[in-house]
């Protein structure tokens, strides 16, 4: 395996709890990147934001025979040192405030994410 240390990937997630099959994979890719020592951030915007509302991700369970929910995936990503960030403007879209967010998620504005995206080696959009 090549050494990717120092590389950075930004994953942009625009899908939320209303489309469960589109929620797990971006986090899975993010965890894969983190396992490869790539600095990884997931940026939640548009509908993606709603999965970060307390109590919502627990309701999304792709495999009913597994106890892994979307909340589990979010926690596993954070345990893997994946950084989770949410778009400030999209919080308003969902009538959410910082108090509504699960722990470990930071809020950033649009200009910050544009700045960041220019410094990352690769951006993946979902």
């Amino acid at each position: 395996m090549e050494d990717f240390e120092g590389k950075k990937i930004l994953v942009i997630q625009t899908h939320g709890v209303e489309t469960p099959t589109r929620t797990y994979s971006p986090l899975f890719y993010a965890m894969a990147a983190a396992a490869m020592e790539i600095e990884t951030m997931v940026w939640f915007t548009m509908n993606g934001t709603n999965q970060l509302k307390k109590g919502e991700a627990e309701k999304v369970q792709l495999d009913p025979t597994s106890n892994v929910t979307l909340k589990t995936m979010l926690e596993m990503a954070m345990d893997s040192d994946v950084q989770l960030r949410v778009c400030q403007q999209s919080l308003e879209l969902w009538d959410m405030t910082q108090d509504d967010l699960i722990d470990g998620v930071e809020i950033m504005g649009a200009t910050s994410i544009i700045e960041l995206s220019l410094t990352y080696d690769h951006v993946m959009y979902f």
Partner: protein
Amino acid sequence: MAHEEVKGCIILKDLYYAVQDNTWVKVEGDDVVTVGMTDIAQSLAGPILHAKTKAPGTARKKGRPIATVESGKWVGPVKSPVTGEIIEVNEALAGDAQLINRSPYKDGWVVKMKASNLEAELAEMTTGDAAVEAYRQKIEQDGIECTHLEGSDTY
């Protein structure tokens, strides 16, 4: 080989374990160690699809990845339990990653390393009855039950 079984999980008493990272170390002598994933780790991962090891010659500090492992439901690093240099990798894993599932302590070893601070780092791991007890607590606390693919090693 002396072992104990807790909820189906095999723990070999003569290995050293980094319990939180679910890795084991076998001391081969001359500061050389073999490193692998535990039976618990392979059970939690489920059938492994790919295992990619770092190349021989790679220097690792304790805690840095020596490999990445992915199954259908999990992807993550295998964290090095020791500081040192990878001197050999298990080439067989590239063609059959489920060796880790079927034989976590034998044919499914991950890398061999030349350790640079072995004595001190072994002292931070657990072995023997202490390892069995540490895993017993972890297994009960996390509600773990080990599962084995067909053709797995028997003890």
